[in-house]
């Protein structure tokens, strides 16, 4: 006699064994882009890894003695030496004849600014280290101060908007180009809005013998001034406006870019965030800055040829993740 069994699909999916390097229970804010990105990276990188983490939010919210959310060997030393700690780990593992992959990681402050020299040294010496930068575009851990990654015109606590100021005066440092100029085997940008793209790029980097770099755009609801529920939407708009192009570079040359199916105006992205609120004032200067940011987005679209040629590319900015999640249904 056959018995009909009802299969609880949702539960089955929940019970699927999946490697988690960064477990739940940490103390990140609601909607934290960095926590999501770090979880995706650690899942894709698997268990045979060793992490060197720069000082910053990620270090603080995942640890706090005697707790730790890490299920993988993990070490925090200082703010500016994650790349060097990673290089030392890699040298040691090489001396021991082990194939464990070293992943160094830091925020934009620890990567673009204070840890920049150590990063350049590690890349130049060709260490077999994957460096991941979680970019939330300011010093969030210390209270939203501007970094060299803060975009032009964004307001932070050290680049506030006011009667004499339109936020940060300077441009966002083009870190991925600088990194690529070291002619390393692989460098890429990614966004928390595209999880399977992150997974794909991490897996790609894990397979590379030599230095690789992954730059992940990760919104900070607190610092950017948007609702925690909008993290993915905000991150996706950064890509869809052309402000944060998703690209891959091999040995210094552009090897791929995620096409944008429908280019959105930068105001769609900026309008969701309090850090750009002053750009929507009724003034000539505000309009000028908006135009400036639109020009930067247009420039990216042109340089990286981001405008999708086909209106229905399943790997473009509208399709990329839905395709891999459940087939072509929503593509």
């Amino acid at each position, binding site marked *: 006699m056959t018995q009909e069994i009802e299969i609880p699909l949702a539960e089955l999916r929940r019970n699927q064994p999946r490697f988690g390097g960064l477990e739940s229970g940490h103390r990140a804010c609601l909607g934290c882009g960095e926590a999501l990105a770090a979880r995706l990276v650690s899942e894709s990188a698997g*268990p*045979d*890894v*060793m992490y*060197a983490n720069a000082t910053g939010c990620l*270090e*603080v919210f995942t*640890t*706090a*003695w*005697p707790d*730790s959310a*890490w*299920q*993988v*060997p*993990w*070490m*925090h*030393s*200082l703010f*500016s*030496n994650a790349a*060097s*700690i*990673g*290089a*030392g*780990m*890699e*040298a*040691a*593992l*090489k*001396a*021991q004849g082990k194939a*464990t992959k070293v992943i160094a990681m830091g925020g934009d402050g620890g990567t673009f600014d204070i840890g920049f*020299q*150590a990063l*350049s*040294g590690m890349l*130049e*010496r060709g260490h077999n280290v994957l460096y991941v930068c979680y970019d939330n575009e300011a010093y969030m851990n210390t209270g939203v101060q501007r970094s060299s990654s803060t975009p032009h015109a964004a307001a932070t606590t050290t680049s506030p908007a006011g009667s004499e100021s339109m936020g940060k005066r300077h441009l966002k440092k083009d870190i991925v180009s600088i990194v690529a100029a070291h002619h390393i085997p692989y460098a890429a940008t990614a966004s928390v809005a595209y999880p399977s793209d992150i997974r794909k790029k991490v897996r790609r980097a894990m397979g590379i013998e030599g230095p690789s770099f992954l730059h992940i755009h990760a919104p900070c609801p607190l610092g950017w001034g948007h609702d925690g529920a909008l993290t993915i939407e905000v991150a996706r708009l950064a890509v869809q406006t052309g402000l944060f192009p998703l690209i891959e570079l091999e040995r210094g040359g552009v090897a791929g870019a995620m096409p944008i199916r429908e280019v959105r105006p930068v105001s769609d992205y900026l309008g969701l965030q309090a850090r750009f609120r002053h750009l929507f004032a009724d003034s000539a200067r505000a309009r000028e800055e908006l135009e400036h940011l639109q020009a930067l987005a247009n420039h990216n679209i042109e340089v990286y040829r981001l405008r999708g040629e086909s209106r229905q590319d399943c790997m473009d900015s509208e399709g990329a993740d839905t395709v891999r999640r459940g087939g072509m249904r929503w593509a």
Partner: protein
Amino acid sequence: MKQALEGSQAIARAVSLCRPQVVSAYPITPQTHIVENLSRLVADGVLDCELVSVESEFSAASVALGAVAAGSRAYTASSSQGILLMSEVLFNISGLRIPLVMTCANRALAAPLSIWNDQQDSMAVRDAGWIQLYCADNQEAVDMTIQAYRIAERCELPVMVCVDGFTLTHTLEVLDLPDQQLVDAFLPAFHFDRKLDPANPISVGTLVSPEFFTEARYDHHQALLQSAEIIEQTRREWQDMTGRDTGGLLGVAGDADARVGVLVLGSITGTLQEAMEASTDTEPACLITLRAFRPFPEQALRDACSGLERLIVLERALSPGAGGIVGSEVRAALSSLDRPPRVFNFSVGLGGRDVPLETWSRALAAVAGNAGAGFDMLDLEPSRLPQEAL
């Protein structure tokens, strides 16, 4: 085997005998010859290790830290500005209780710029939580480097072996370099219990709240205090194996019944020894060589000074606005004696100024009579001061 070697060459050979798996360094005078010699040993296949030539001292210390955390024996070396640049990492290494050995080729700190010897650099990181050992000659530099690995790995503390720049690092001396078999027997293969390992993942260097911070510092302090016994034990074991009595907390030479003593660190030892032997017309004195500055050997120092009426402390560093660094610590340590000696503290040989044999008679003259027992610069040349300072 006895051979004539430059100090740096001898130190490099001693490091190589300890079989480090990772060496990382950044060049700075007068440390360069050590690293150049190590690079040569690697290039010639004598030393099998990963040599990481980094882009700064900050990274030199960080690479060494990462390497030990990942389970390999490591080495680095620096001097002067390099010590300052890596100072943030030095505090981190000791706080994480990482057994690492480094050489500090002692040199003055700028400004004004000086590439010559004094001990301001290692004194500047006195409170970094490292064991600090000072070598009197290159035989000690060799022996104490090898001992340092054993001490570091037993105590899970980093050790800084301090050698006077140029005076030791660039001087040719006849010395005995132990053979590999002896060093292998003295120093077991590296094993670090708290190493990072995917099979047994741990989190290292986490944030610590006020709830636990004091206890972590207590633990670190106790480890340093307890390392004193390990340093002495290592000295005895080394003596058993080589017949040479090098290392330890401090050395006492000269007249045991003397009422005058002089305390020094590093290569001034030899100069004073010779000067004291040669001066037959002065009153008998004893020479105390401080080998370990951290841990500070308070008890051993009290024992060595208990019969003294006057103690002269000569040091190659200065705490501007206060005076001597070693001198104040010695004075504080001896204050609990029933009849503590009067402590006369002098700086000498700052920024590479030569410390000649006459230093001894000069020091004795300066403390004769009822001169105040404070701090002074023994070899100051008033004629070279700007006029307005006179």
